[in-house]
């Protein structure tokens, strides 16, 4: 440390020293972030207004024509619809299931720790690995799922679950539920543990039934956790790529394409970098608008309860 600041000059130099230190600590992260996050995103916007096949300078300026092409492409519009179905479907399936499992497990029971570990296993597996296993399970004829359905007398679809354009998206959605339900359960369980024990004791003294306790205490107090989880789920669903790529590749008959598979197809397979750029800008705008809307409409109401939680946990720490 420099000698204690003497008069004006000393203070100036210590201010500069501080600035240098800040720069020293922050610059590497900012540089990496600028090069690999900001620059590519800016480039995507730039590419979106050119016709470019991947080589030579950007000269063929086309204005917004790529956007017109993308938005006029039925495959892309369907992709957006598929993404939205997955956003809605994931929440509609995982929220009630996750909540039910979390409420049931939130009690003293044998093997609880083991149960939590098991429920979380699918989440830790790579989406690709989970996808490959499910792809085999869902095979028509020799797949085990058709076998099990046949054993109880049910007829599986002829072209297979992933081969039938009417069923493929639903099948992908179910596999995604299997993969991500564990995350919802773990987060809800954590949220439930934040509910003060006194509330349950008070409810018990008042003669509340188990159902009443869950409905009036657990679920409302879990609100912030559920809303934040839904936000993360939504952002993830909008970016969905790996699972679809493995299970269906967007098929059959483009019935499971997502915005991400569309832009990868355009960018790396067809070398239509301008089209891919426009598609990524649209994907980003959709994600941003949904995030901001969600923030304004849903998450904003948590702000006040947050302050309370933070205060409460502070007290615990100082104890």
């Amino acid at each position, binding site marked *: 440390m420099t000698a204690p600041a003497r008069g004006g000059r000393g203070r100036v130099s210590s201010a500069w020293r501080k600035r240098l230190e800040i720069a020293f600590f922050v610059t590497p*992260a900012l540089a990496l972030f600028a090069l690999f996050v900001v620059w590519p995103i800016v480039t995507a916007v730039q590419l979106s207004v050119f016709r470019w096949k991947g080589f030579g300078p950007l000269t063929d300026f086309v204005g917004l024509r790529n956007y017109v092409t993308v938005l006029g492409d039925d495959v892309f519009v369907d992709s957006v619809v598929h993404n939205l179905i997955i956003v809605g479907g994931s929440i509609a399936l995982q929220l009630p299931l996750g909540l039910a499992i979390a409420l049931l497990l939130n009690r003293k029971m044998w093997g609880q720790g083991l149960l939590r570990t098991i429920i979380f296993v699918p989440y830790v597996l790579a989406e690709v690995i989970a996808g490959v296993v499910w792809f085999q399970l869902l095979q028509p004829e*020799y797949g085990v799922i058709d076998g099990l359905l046949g054993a109880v007398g049910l007829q599986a679809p002829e072209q297979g679950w992933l081969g039938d354009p009417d069923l493929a998206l639903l099948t992908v959605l179910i596999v995604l539920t299997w993969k991500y339900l564990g*995350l919802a359960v*773990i987060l809800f369980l*954590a949220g439930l543990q934040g509910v003060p024990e006194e509330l349950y004791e008070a409810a018990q003294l008042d003669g509340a039934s188990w159902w009443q306790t869950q409905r009036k205490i657990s679920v409302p107090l879990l609100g912030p956790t559920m809303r*934040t989880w839904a936000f993360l789920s939504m*952002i993830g669903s909008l970016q969905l790529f790996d699972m679809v790529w493995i299970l269906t590749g967007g098929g059959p008959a483009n019935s499971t394409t997502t915005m991400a598979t569309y832009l*990868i197809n355009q960018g790396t397979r067809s070398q239509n970098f301008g089209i891919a750029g426009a598609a990524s800008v649209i994907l*980003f705008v959709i*994600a941003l608008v949904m995030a901001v809307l969600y923030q304004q409409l849903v998450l904003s109401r948590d702000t006040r309860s947050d302050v309370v939680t933070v205060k409460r946990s502070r007290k615990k720490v100082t104890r």
Partner: protein
Amino acid sequence: MSAPTTNVLMSAPTARNTGREPARRRRSNGGSQPLVYAIALVVVALTLGPVLYGVLGGFRTNAQIAQDPSGLPDPWVLDNYVGVLTSASFWQYAVNSAVIAVLTTAITVVLGVMAAYPLARYRFKGREALFMVFVVGLLFPATVAIVPLFILITQNLQLGNTWLGVALPQAAFALPVTVVILRPFLAAIPQELEEAAQLDGTSRIGFFWRVLLPLSGPGMVTVGVLAFVGSWNAYLLPLLLLQSDMKTLPLGVADFSSEHSADTAGVFAFTTLAMIPALVFFLAMQKRIVNGLQGAVKG
């Protein structure tokens, strides 16, 4: 302190996850226990079923699987697993995955903790604006930038098909969540320690090295585990950037599955062996992963 503006991924996760234990006695009024265990068993079966089926399928022959898809191995055969374990490409993929994950983790944690330090403990103009850069970064999915990223790495930087070419962008995209988790963590370290260090004549950089880093170990482990698992499971970026013997395990699994689609038993053996490292790592680090995710979500 963490402003509750965007309350996703904010406010001290450290504080939240410690010191709660005493209140964890759970009531069990109502809801008959046998029913709960029955439901728990169903959940476990549905969760583990596909994974176990894959593991067992690796011990069967394709003829067995074709004859009775839902049967048990009879007799148990080791050929599939032996075949994968003796193939050079499996080990090559595993090494690639491991090196890329370690590089990603190291870059993420080192740069992340450095950036989080002034954001947490210095007072300066533009600090919140700087922090917002990282918060907004959370909203940028790598997918959006994937095509320019591909061009940048393969053409401009000539890092296509290298370990570093995958690790650098992965670390860049992992930085926002790392900084956002670490900042409240570093801010929670008592001010008195810093004052004491200053009285002893330690500079702020010295304080960073000798006090802050050792104390923030748990936080760094949490973000490190998240970065490692993210890299280990990554598919899209490696898919675009890596070819032939530079591929990672997820790419290897996907390739094997499409090239040997008729060899179901082989595919099961390959996927099972590929998932073991992630599972072992998860079991060893379970607390950290769960804490990290919970800290990230509890707003």
